[in-house]
């Protein structure tokens, strides 16, 4: 109902005015959002005293900024030295820095922390001011839009990307000033740099070419995941980008432990062993700090859930002090990283289990993973007749196959191909054996697995 009224409003009002005042357009944004912020902040959120577990959960949130960034001091010093070196000369020389590392290793966070520290130094007057533009390659509508975003950030005007490219060329190659700004050096941070790769790599070329011009005063810091991104580019670009590199390696378990513990400083909710156990597990797989924090937060949630259910069920007024231990961390890891297909196979319907057993049997018999529906139907029919089951008919069997294919337990072609449909197990046959061999309703499956 509301949508119809609003669309009528849009048609009747003059199109350009409605567009300007619309909350999601660029100019209209400040008109609308103040309405949201004005609502009363509800009292109860602040009222009740947080338990230790709740404070621990809040501290482990990815969104909460830690007071300091542990384990990245060396890298932060290098970044600080690079930037200060680049902007401190009177004649600022343009430079490029390439930062790389797997996700979750603190790259963006380190750069932003360095920029915050430099901001305080600028406010204190010990270094000259600069302008800082932060761009994320994955948030741009297309790689060419980066010119528009940079120009808008520097000058405040919005123009098309071609015009922006032209104006930026004038600014960086020829030194013409944009608007009323004075000659400040410009630091450009580009996150997810590999998304700017186009077919002729022109966007990257321009961005990395400008710092080499004498009047540009442009410092570019690029962040990406792959170590060899410069090598994958055209030589003229890799020569500009690849000189200064900084690698953020995956965290080892001591570093992860330190990261989690520093966030939980002053909060007594976790046993030491639990944090160490989570850190060791994550370090062995990926070394991703986000994963470690999420596992610990989930373990705290599980503990909180059990505690609250216990309190509400037993009407016990005493709040049992319960620390998060290794059992909860293990439960969190199981829940978050165990593949769900074994459980789904165990609880699937009777005919689905027979279907899967027939696929494993075919695999053993022929040695080939891929089979056709016709052969499978014959195998199912043999299995059913030798074990006293009623054969469900080809149509029902096709439906069962397609349902398993929808869950991706089995990979199958479209059901319209009927007996010519090709099928393949999506998981190792050992998983299927493990799931089905102890089935109570179909004990004879074990013979074929």
């Amino acid at each position, binding site marked *: 109902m509301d949508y119809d009224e609003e669309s009528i409003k849009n048609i009747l009002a003059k199109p350009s005015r409605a567009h300007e005042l*619309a909350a*999601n357009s660029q100019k209209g944004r400040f008109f609308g959002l103040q309405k949201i912020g004005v609502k009363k902040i509800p009292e109860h959120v602040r009222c009740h005293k947080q338990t230790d577990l709740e404070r621990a959960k809040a501290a482990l949130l990815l969104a909460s900024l830690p007071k300091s960034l542990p384990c990245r001091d060396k890298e932060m010093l290098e970044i600080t030295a690079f930037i200060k070196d680049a902007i401190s000369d009177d004649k600022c020389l343009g430079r490029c820095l390439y930062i790389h590392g797997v996700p979750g290793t603190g790259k963006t966070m380190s750069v932003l922390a360095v920029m915050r520290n430099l901001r305080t130094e600028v406010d204190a007057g010990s270094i000259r001011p600069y302008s800082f533009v932060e761009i994320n390659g994955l948030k741009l*509508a297309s790689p060419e839009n980066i010119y528009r975003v940079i120009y808008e950030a520097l000058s405040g005007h919005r123009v098309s990307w071609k015009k922006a490219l032209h104006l930026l060329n004038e600014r960086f190659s020829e030194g013409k000033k944009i608007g009323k700004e004075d000659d400040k050096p410009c630091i450009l941070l580009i996150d997810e740099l590999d998304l700017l790769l186009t077919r002729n790599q022109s966007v990257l070329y321009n961005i990395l070419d400008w710092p080499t011009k004498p009047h540009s005063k442009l410092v570019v810091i690029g962040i990406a995941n792959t170590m060899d991104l410069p090598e994958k580019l055209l030589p003229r670009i890799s020569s500009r980008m690849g000189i200064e590199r900084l690698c953020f390696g995956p965290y080892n378990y001591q570093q992860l432990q330190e990261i989690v513990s520093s966030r939980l400083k002053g909060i007594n909710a976790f046993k030491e062993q639990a944090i160490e156990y989570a850190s060791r597990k994550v370090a062995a797989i990926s070394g991703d700090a986000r994963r470690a924090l999420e596992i610990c937060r989930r373990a705290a949630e599980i503990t909180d859930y059990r505690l609250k259910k216990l309190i509400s069920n037993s009407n016990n007024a005493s709040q049992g002090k319960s620390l998060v231990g290794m059992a909860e961390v293990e439960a969190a890891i199981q829940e978050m990283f165990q593949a769900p297909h074994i459980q789904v196979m165990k609880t699937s319907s009777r005919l689905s289990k027979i279907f899967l057993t027939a696929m494993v049997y075919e695999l053993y018999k022929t040695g080939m993973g891929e089979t056709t529906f016709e052969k499978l139907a014959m195998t199912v029919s043999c299995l059913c007749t030798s074990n006293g089951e009623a054969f469900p008919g080809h149509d029902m069997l096709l439906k069962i196959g397609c349902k398993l294919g929808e869950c991706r337990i089995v990979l199958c072609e479209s059901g319209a191909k009927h007996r010519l449909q090709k099928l393949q197990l999506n998981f190792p046959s050992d998983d299927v054996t493990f799931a089905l061999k102890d089935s109570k309703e179909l004990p004879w499956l074990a013979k074929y697995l």
Partner: protein
Amino acid sequence: MAREIPAEKALGLLRSRLCDPNFAFKALSHSDDSNYSKLKFLVSSSITEACNNSILLLGPRGSGKIAVLELVLSDLLQEYPDMISVIRLSGLLHSSDNCAFKEIARQLCMEHQLVFSRMASFDDNSQFMIAMLRECGLAHKTIIFILDEFDLFALGKQKLLYSLLDAMQSVTSQAVVIGVSCRLDADMLLDKRVRSRFSHRKLLFLPPANEDIQRLLEHILSLPTDSSFPPDYAVAFNTKLQNILADERFKEIISTYLNFDSTVKHLLRYLFRAVSYMDLESGMLSLENFKAALSNIQRHPKLECIKDCSILELYILVCMKRLEIKEQNSYNFNSVMKEYKSIHDSVKTSDYFARNVCLRAFEHLLQRELIGFTDNRGQNHSVEFTPVKLLVSFHELHQGLKSYGSCPAILQQLMDRQK
């Protein structure tokens, strides 16, 4: 006459219950270990503790993921009236990033009574979303994003997922992202950057156990004994129902049905049909209703198709089968005609038709998908030269011929003979 009215009312009540998945899943969600209570705890603690969370609901189709989610949301909307906005997206409609951001902006504008413009660009919409997340975070309102068919959002560059999860990580936002998918490997589809930001919480929805199904049947099919129905009618109905449920034959019917697919939605579909067969004269359910529903709902489309074929079409199918047995892997309409002629020459049947009639019969078979072209690229050539294959197996064809009303004996012999 007077008895028909409560029977119709009863029928209407049962049918409306069976069409509403929330009713069934409410009955299954009482224990502390159920997905309902876990999901409710997660979302409500995100609201009260002002934190962000992302969760995936996984399970086969019809296991109740959306139904349980709707139950949780309706409960939370009552408990925290002004603190929640819900944004619903579907992977089938909004998988393109442009479309998704526009839809999010539209729903946000509708929720907060702001003016929406359809002409805003991608950048405008994404900045609007981030600004709204920040504002709602400051005002302690939680935004719940429901992404239905989540696996379809993971195609392409995953810009929507990245922006959402990144905003949850860095802005003062209070958002819960709930993805719903029937693919069990939905989280493997995420790009490594998006996977790192996703919080890997999963809830698995599995079909109910047998005892739960018994309880569910009773709960759904029993009439309420309050004043909406004449008391003796309701009591008589419920007693008859208990007798049916305890009957061994009924248990066998239900287990035969659930052998195929044990999800709740499938069961509800069957019960709807069974209840629709209820005899309005007596106003009671009977075992025959359930038996009739079972035979009606489990159909064999291909066999019925073969039974509907004309004699000439059966001839063509048998010819194709003979060609396949002779290991001729690639054959077309002309080869089938040759085989047809050779049969007629050796056996002198009365069913010899002209070529253009056979072509019509051939096209009928193609339309009904009893036969099909081997590859779709051959559409440019005429029907007569494109290679075809049988889409029914020999077994099905054999069964179809056996149950055909007036199948000529010669066809049966041709089927059985190897040459």
